[in-house]
């Protein structure tokens, strides 16, 4: 265990733990866009920057992204100085300039007193903020079906060559994790379309309701050793099945008792 000081309060933390986790545990609110507990920290959005110093640094201080900074004994952290406010406000201002229609960004910017961007808004811009959450989650699945392509301001998230991604299994993790809801998909009857690729959705063999994509189910069966028959019915029908089994057991016990 190590002792660090956050906004003047001494806090105990486990060595190697990331600063952001400790700060949040203390109930201090720091905005983030690229951080997600299921992912390794990436430091793309820079919103979680904090000011750090140490007694022996003699007044020298530096700004670090707390999501990737491992805590160490004697660290003195400030999370809400006027300079940090300015940094976060400027970052939100820049993001809002590129994605003026994003309600997520608008809401965050409002909290920093920004009602509209100070820059010329890109009215055709989409809401992607390049947090890489989608590509990182795809990497966790071991698929990496999509990735960032091009450089700088031209960078986009795309499947290889902009074609149907061969490794995509249609799990929608990328779409769900996206903080600004840019990744779209459609489920029509038993067909899911995402990244222009079509997937067959498994239909519940009892009621016909669509569940997950067949590719995703096969992936789980193979990777996680789950029995294939678990995926044949939907959750509603499986609950009824359970009730019937339990009921049958009860009735049988009664009969035996009689």
């Amino acid at each position, binding site marked *: 265990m190590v002792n660090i000081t956050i906004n003047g309060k001494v806090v105990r933390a486990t060595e190697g733990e990331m600063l952001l986790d400790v700060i949040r545990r203390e109930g201090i609110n720091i905005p983030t866009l690229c951080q997600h507990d299921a992912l390794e920290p990436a430091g793309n959005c820079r919103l979680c920057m904090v000011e750090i110093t140490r007694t022996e640094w003699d007044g020298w201080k530096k700004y670090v992204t707390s999501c990737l900074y491992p805590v160490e004994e004697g660290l003195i952290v400030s999370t809400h100085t006027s300079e940090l406010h300015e940094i976060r406000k400027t970052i939100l201002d820049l993001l809002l300039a590129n994605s003026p229609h994003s309600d997520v960004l608008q809401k965050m910017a409002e909290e920093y007193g920004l009602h509209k961007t100070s820059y010329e808004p890109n009215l055709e811009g989409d809401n992607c903020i390049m947090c890489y959450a989608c590509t990182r989650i795809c990497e966790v699945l071991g698929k990496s079906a999509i990735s960032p392509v091009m450089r700088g301001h031209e960078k986009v998230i795309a499947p290889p060559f902009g074609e149907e991604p061969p490794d995509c299994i249609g799990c929608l993790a990328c779409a769900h994790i996206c903080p600004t809801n840019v990744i779209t998909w459609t489920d029509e009857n038993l067909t899911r379309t995402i990244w222009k690729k079509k997937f067959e959705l498994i239909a519940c063999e009892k009621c016909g309701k669509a569940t997950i994509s067949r590719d*995703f189910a096969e992936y789980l069966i193979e990777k996680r050793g*789950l029995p294939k028959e678990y995926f044949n019915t939907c959750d509603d029908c499986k609950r009824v099945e359970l*009730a019937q089994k339990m009921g049958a057991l009860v009735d049988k016990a009664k009969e035996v008792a009689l």
Partner: protein
Amino acid sequence: MKFQFEVKPSLCTGCRTCELACAFSHTRDKKPGRSRIYPIAYAPDKFVPVACLQCDDAACVKSCMFGALKRNETTGAIDLDRERCVKCMACVAACPFGCALVDEGHDNEIVKCDLCGGDPACAHFCPTKALVYKKIG
């Protein structure tokens, strides 16, 4: 000390008080959550309350690629870490008893029985004591 649900279907009237208790005890953002327990009729006028069995070798835990489902050693429940969940629905599809659910009222979050942290509200409110949470062993 171990606890377990004792279910007596003969006492269950299908009144769905357990559902209400569950939904309200899981209220968030001023909205009741989706109930994690359902009394289901297995025969005409015969009901049994169905909820997560907290399986030992749980399919939901295995199916989660992001480590969002973990056994809570204190309560014995398999808890969902909402901060890690990506809502990919793998657990919903994988649970053989259909007890991982989607809460449409809360942005399609995944929900499942968490034993209310060790003191299940459903058992408290069951008017006929068809559902009792009791010490075993």
